[in-house]
């Protein structure tokens, strides 16, 4: 196997009793857009800070092109970073901010001017050289920060929730810009977010963080279609979970009894730590079909509510033992006409497209 471009090996970080990062191992290819996705406190920033050299790991190593980075101080790592908070130097103009890393590197005056204007052009802020950061909007400031982080051509660019302070529309606009910049420059990006939509939109691969560990790494589609854990299943895409009884399981497939007695077979089974007799069954709202008459192997539910959402319709239902399940149907689905609130209906699905987590 060829040597990975960036390799994070068994990183662990504790603060006294607090475990910020339990065990993170991950390889990133050159030019890849890798996103760390996870809830607050799952150790995403800590991992990034260790990469940047602001913190030393309690254990583990980081290799860039096969060389350990840990003994190199931050200012010599040559890594770029955009922070969640605005970190432009307030006493310098936009142009001087972008020139800062080049000045430190003693690049010649003419080359600085040229590279600064190129970097500002890349983030579409030509002509803002003489502005002070305080007079720029949040989105503009983050774009300047991006230009400042890219102007010295770092091999790796770290971004720690750079858009979380912006409103939704602006966020989407800059996401688009970040994608374009990634494609234009080919820089390797490690991006942190807790917004799954942002992760799906931007990334080549996503690492899902949970409690200081990576639960699963894969493309958005892989994570959606084949979640490895209950947590990933719940975090990526919309999801329903119902309790089921495990009748038998072999070769990663299980036979399950659903509430109400329906038995389904051939469900992909992800054995967890418990390995007990009960499992949680993932049913994606858009993978469920609904019919107003009884169907074979169907799950009997009561219609709770029907909500029109534009191009699709969300039907919220309740199973016999009170678990709620939402179903998403395309607009104009024939079942809609024949059901109304309080009615009995039947849900059916392909067992092999679902997942059970023990």
């Amino acid at each position, binding site marked *: 196997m060829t040597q990975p471009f960036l390799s994070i090996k068994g990183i662990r970080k504790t603060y006294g009793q607090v475990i910020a990062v339990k065990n993170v191992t991950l390889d990133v290819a050159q030019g890849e857009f890798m996103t760390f996705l996870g809830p607050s406190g799952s150790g995403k920033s800590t991992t990034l800070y260790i990469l940047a050299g602001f913190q030393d790991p309690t254990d583990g190593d980081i290799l860039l092109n096969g060389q350990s980075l840990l003994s190199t101080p931050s200012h010599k790592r040559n890594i770029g970073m955009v922070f969640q908070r605005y970190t432009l130097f307030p006493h310098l103009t936009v142009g001087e901010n972008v020139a*800062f890393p080049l000045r*430190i590197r003693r690049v010649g005056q003419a080359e600085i001017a040229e590279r600064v204007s190129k970097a500002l052009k890349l983030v579409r802020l030509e002509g803002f050289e003489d502005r002070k950061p305080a007079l720029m909007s949040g989105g503009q400031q983050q774009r300047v920060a991006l230009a400042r982080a890219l102007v010295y051509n770092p091999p790796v660019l770290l971004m720690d929730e750079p858009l979380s302070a912006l409103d939704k529309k602006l966020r989407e606009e800059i996401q688009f810009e970040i994608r374009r910049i990634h494609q234009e420059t080919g820089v390797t990006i490690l991006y942190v977010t807790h917004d799954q939509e942002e992760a799906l939109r931007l990334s080549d691969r996503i690492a899902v963080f949970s409690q200081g560990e990576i639960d699963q790494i894969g493309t958005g589609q892989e994570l959606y279609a084949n979640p490895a854990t209950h947590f990933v299943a719940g975090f990526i895409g919309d999801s329903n979970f119902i309790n089921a009884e495990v009748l038998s399981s072999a070769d990663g497939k299980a036979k399950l009894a659903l509430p109400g007695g329906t038995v389904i077979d051939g469900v992909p089974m992800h054995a967890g730590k418990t390995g007990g007799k009960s499992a949680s069954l993932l049913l994606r709202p858009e993978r469920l079909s609904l019919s107003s008459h009884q169907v074979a192997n169907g799950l009997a539910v009561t219609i709770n509510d029907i909500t029109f959402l534009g191009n699709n319709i969300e039907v919220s239902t309740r199973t016999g033992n009170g678990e709620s399940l939402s179903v998403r149907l395309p607009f104009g689905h024939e079942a809609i006409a024949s059901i109304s609130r309080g009615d009995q209906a039947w849900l059916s699905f392909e067992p092999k497209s679902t997942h059970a987590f023990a």
Partner: protein
Amino acid sequence: MVVSATTDGGQRKIRRNGSFGYVVPALLLIAFFFIIPVLMLLMRSVLEPTPGLQNYRELLGSTTYLRVFMNTFTVAGLVTVVAVVIGFPVAWLLAIMPDKWSRLVMAIIILSMWTNLLARTYAWMVLLQRTGVVNKMLINLGIIDKPLALVNNLVGVTIGMTYIMLPFVILPLIGILKSIDPAVLRAAALCGANKRQCFTRVLLPLSLPGIASGALMVFVMSLGYYVTPALLGGTSNMMLAELVAQFVQSLVNWGMGGAAALVLLVVTLVLYAVQLKFLNPNRAR
């Protein structure tokens, strides 16, 4: 920027809605206890012993008095520099210390400010004298073998006044340093700046307004200081306030005393105007 904008707006609102009448008693008080005495002093300085500007001419024309002016500026400048050099790192430590500890240290600093000035100055006299703790310690440590002259000279004045002025540098600087986001310094480090470059190119320029206003305050306060120079200084480095006291108390020369006091006041006001012009924190940067 946002903060200053709202305070400006707030002040404007108060001015618009509030009645001017409320401030009249305060203005009267200031007029009675501050402006009138100053005017009286001004009158005496140009009227005694005979009407004219001869007091000012004598004061600004004689080398003896010019030496006093020079001394005053030297001491004030020295105290300012030393206070900033010591105060900046202390303020930085206090700014990055856990809140629990910094509050304790700040309480000690403020408590020292509340302690009687004379008591504090006498304490330094005891510490710094020939047989004082400082000299004894230095001798016992083998750093010196004869006691140093630490009082009744420039060294004594500088030490005593720096100690008194330090809080005026430290306290405002803590606020400024705390308002600097550590992420900005991290960004500088990733941009390639080493510790020294982070300090000279980011931290120092960002704290410059705080340093400058603290320094100016210390300088202006030092110019008119009396007690500490009188007790810890020698006769060869008399300061302006001591000169005023001598004119008024020993020589009963109100004309010269008033002139000296007014020169001091004018210098102070000029410096204050400079501060307002260049160091206004609300000025858009």
